[in-house]
Every structure is written in structure tokens, then in C-alpha cells.
């Protein structure tokens, strides 16, 4: 599933968060996105998830426009049906987990496959149990989110996103809200998924070691622009851009 962004810009009032971003992510690529806070990383993911609309520019998933359609030379908002068909290829895991509080772990995972994919209850449940196994939470199927630790909640959220069988998966700082001792278990799950699936993955993270060993490619963003775009080895050992060097020095020398 190729994702491509062309000249995508986004501002909040006077603040330019993304400045004419061009980015193509080929099928199956694991792309890590790093950069200081406010550099536009999260906004980039939110645009791909259609949680925000770009002010200008286009986003395409396998050649199909996302959230917009062409009428003559103009772009107009997409009709909801087509939007949902394109959006169905994309999944996202959030910083704050956002589990449904009044559903058990199992119910959290089953909801969308039943309601959106039209799976039978039995099939959805079987799949949900399998996925809870993948994220190492087979014993927690009937627990409510409040009874789970942050790391466990995030792993349920990952399973929930996987249940929709997305072809592109977005991870938005998925360990930023976690206590340090819970980060490892979540990253291990994501590493495993990255190894074992052909999903295209966009991973926004502040965990530099994780970014380095999970990705095929890393982009460094600053001030709403992609400043450096290279392989993980080069990015972390020999970055060419001055700002990248300063950022990496600052975060790695903590």
C-alpha cells in the first residue's frame, strides 16, 4: 500500500505546522518519524488518519485520493462512503490508548470488526482472542481498561487496530504516556508486528533506539518540514544536516 503526500500544508491559525510536505512511503516500508516537539510529526499522522484536513495539497493511498475528490481541476470534500472505503486501509494507535472504558479488552477489539467489516460475533471473537495472544494478554480478555496498566491498555489498543486488518498502520508516540518500566513491553509487541507483517508502518517516536532498529527509513522533521530523509544507519551515525545532528546529540546524550 503506497502512501503519498504531495505539497501538504496545514496551519492552526498563524502557526504553520506542516509546510508543503512531499512524502512517498512504498508498500511495506517501516518509516520512523523523529523530531522535536511541535515539528509536525503527529499532525502528519493525523492528516493521514483523516482526523484533520490539509489546508492544501493531496494525500493518496494507492493512487486514490484521501478525503477529497476531483471535480474538474478542483478538490472537493469526499463523499462519506468513498472516504470510509479508503480510510478502511489505514489504522492508528494513539498516545493515550483511547480504549472504550465500558467494554472489556475483548469487546474493545471485537466492536469494529463486527460493525464495520460485518464479521460474525464468533469470528470476531476468535480473531480478538488470537490478537490478544499476539500482544501477550490472553489472560486479560475480560478485564475492563481501568483494571489494566498503561502498557497493557496500549497493547489492547494495538490489537484493536490490528483487528481491522489495515494495510497502513500509524503509531503516534505510543509510549509517551507510559511509565518507563512499561515502555519495553509495548515496543517489543510493535517490533514483533513489524517483523511478521507486510503492513506499511509510520512510526512517530521519541525512542531513538526503537526508531533505529525497527525502521527501513527515518525522516527527521523540524519546523513543519522534512529536514533529513535517509536510512536508519546514516540517520543515527552520520546525519548530514546540522539541525538533525543537534537534535540527536541532545536526545541521545541525556
Amino acid at each position, binding site marked *: 500500500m503506497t502512501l503519498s503526500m504531495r505539497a501538504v500544508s496545514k496551519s492552526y491559525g498563524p502557526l504553520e505546522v506542516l509546510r508543503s510536505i512531499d512524502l512517498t512511503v512504498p508498500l511495506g516500508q517501516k518509516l520512523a518519524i523523529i523530531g522535536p516537539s511541535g515539528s509536525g510529526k503527529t499532525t502528519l499522522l493525523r492528516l493521514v488518519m483523516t482526523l484533520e484536513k490539509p489546508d492544501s495539497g493531496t494525500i493518496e493511498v494507492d493512487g486514490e485520493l484521501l478525503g477529497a475528490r476531483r471535480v474538474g481541476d478542483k478538490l472537493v470534500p469526499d463523499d462519506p462512503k468513498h472516504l470510509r472505503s479508503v480510510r478502511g486501509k489505514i489504522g492508528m494507535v*494513539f498516545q493515550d490508548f483511547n480504549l472504550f*472504558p*465500558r467494554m472489556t479488552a475483548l469487546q474493545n477489539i471485537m466492536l469494529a470488526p463486527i460493525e464495520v467489516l460485518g464479521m460474525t460475533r464468533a469470528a470476531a471473537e476468535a480473531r480478538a482472542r488470537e490478537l490478544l495472544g499476539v500482544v501477550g494478554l490472553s489472560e486479560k480478555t475480560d478485564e*475492563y481498561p481501568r483494571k489494566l496498566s498503561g502498557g497493557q491498555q496500549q497493547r489492547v489498543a494495538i490489537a484493536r*487496530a490490528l483487528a481491522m486488518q489495515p494495510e497502513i498502520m500509524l503509531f503516534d508516540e505510543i509510549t509517551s504516556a507510559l511509565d518507563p518500566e512499561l515502555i519495553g513491553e509495548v515496543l517489543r509487541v510493535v517490533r514483533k508486528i513489524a517483523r511478521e507483517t507486510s503492513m506499511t508502518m509510520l512510526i512517530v517516536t521519541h525512542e531513538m533506539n526503537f526508531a533505529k532498529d525497527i525502521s527501513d527509513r527515518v525522516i527527521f522533521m523540524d519546523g513543519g518540514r522534512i529536514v533529513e530523509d535517509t536510512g536508519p544507519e546514516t540517520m543515527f551515525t552520520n546525519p548530514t544536516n546540522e539541525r538533525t545532528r543537534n537534535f540527536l546529540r541532545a536526545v541521545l546524550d541525556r
Partner: protein
Amino acid sequence: MTFDFGFAQQILPTLVDGARITFIATVCGMTLALMGGLILAVVRMSQVRVLRWIGNAYVEFFRDTPLLIQLFFLFYVLPFWGITLPAIATGILGLGLNYSAYTAEIYRAGIESVPRGQWEVATALNLSSRTTWRRVVLPQAYPPVVPMFGNNLIGMFKDSMLLSTITVLELFAVTNDIGSTTYRYLEPFTLLGIIVLSLSLGGAWVVNTLSKRVAQAESTSRQPGH
């Protein structure tokens, strides 16, 4: 004037009949208001500006004009448009329309208490807006506002006495009738007070129990991690 227990006993069945009408009007009116309010609340959060505008206009209109006038309008003007309803149905409709505006505000408070992340994850899971409302937002929006619905229920119960002005023989109407035909007011109005108070207290108890039960369900699903 001394309280005549014999007379009180004699008029009690009539009052109970009136109370039955009052009870029915309140229950049906509240059911209407709960449905109407929900529809209004959703319409007021619509993407479509015209719908939002209509929803807001409705709420402002019904909150800012007296229920009494609304009832009179329904009762005396609707028949001119060929809509003739029994008085009790007109009354229930009036109560329902009026209280929809108030319950819509309560629903809104509940809906706004649902974190934005819940809407966002619904989008990320590609849920339809129907499913998002039905399975994600509303189940979280109800519990905190159940007590407010309770206040509305008691309010409507008291307001239902206004139905006497459009010829509905509810509790107040029959009480007043007894007074004006027998010239005895002490017994009927004392009994009225007792009936109203016990129904109000009963209603409050039901709502309290319900709130507690909802809160309990909430706390079993929301215990802190261990």
C-alpha cells in the same frame, strides 16, 4: 374548619383517578422528552449548519416561552389545522415538546463529557457515525447525567398540573372541582399535597437508585490499575 375524615375518604377515589392521569401524563411526556431531546442533541451537533440552526432555534423557542402558552396553542390552534387530539394527548405532546428542549441540554452536557480521543479512535476504526453514537459516545454520555434527568422528571410532574387548563382531568383539576362544587377545600387540597409529595418522593427514590446503580456499573469498569 375541622378536617372531616369521612369526607376525605369519600373523595379519595376521585383524587386517585386524577393522580393516575397525572402519572400517565408525566411518564408518557418524559418518554417523549427523552427521545425528542436525544434527537435534538444529535441534530445540534450535526455537520450540517441548517440542522444545527433548527435545533438551536427549537431549544431557544421552547425554553423561552411559557409552557402554559404552548399548551394553549396546541389545544386551541391545532384543531384549526385539522389536527384534533384528545386533551390528554395534547397535554402529553406539549409536555414532551417543551421538556425535549431541556433534556437536549442535558444530553449535550453528557455528550460533551466524552473525551475527544473517543471520537478520534472511532474515526480511526472507521466506525459509521451511527455506530459511533450508539456504541461509543452515548453509553459514556448517559451515566453522569442520570441525576439531571431525575430533576427534570420531578419538574415535569409538577408542571403537569398545568394540563388542568386544557380540560385534562388530572389531579389538580379534580381537586379543584371538588372544592368548587362542595365548598370544602381543606380535605381535597390536603390530600392533593400528600399525594403529590409521596409521588415526588417516590420518583426521587427511583432516580436515586438508578443513579447509584449506574455509578456502580461505572466503578466496576473503572477501577484503578493494580
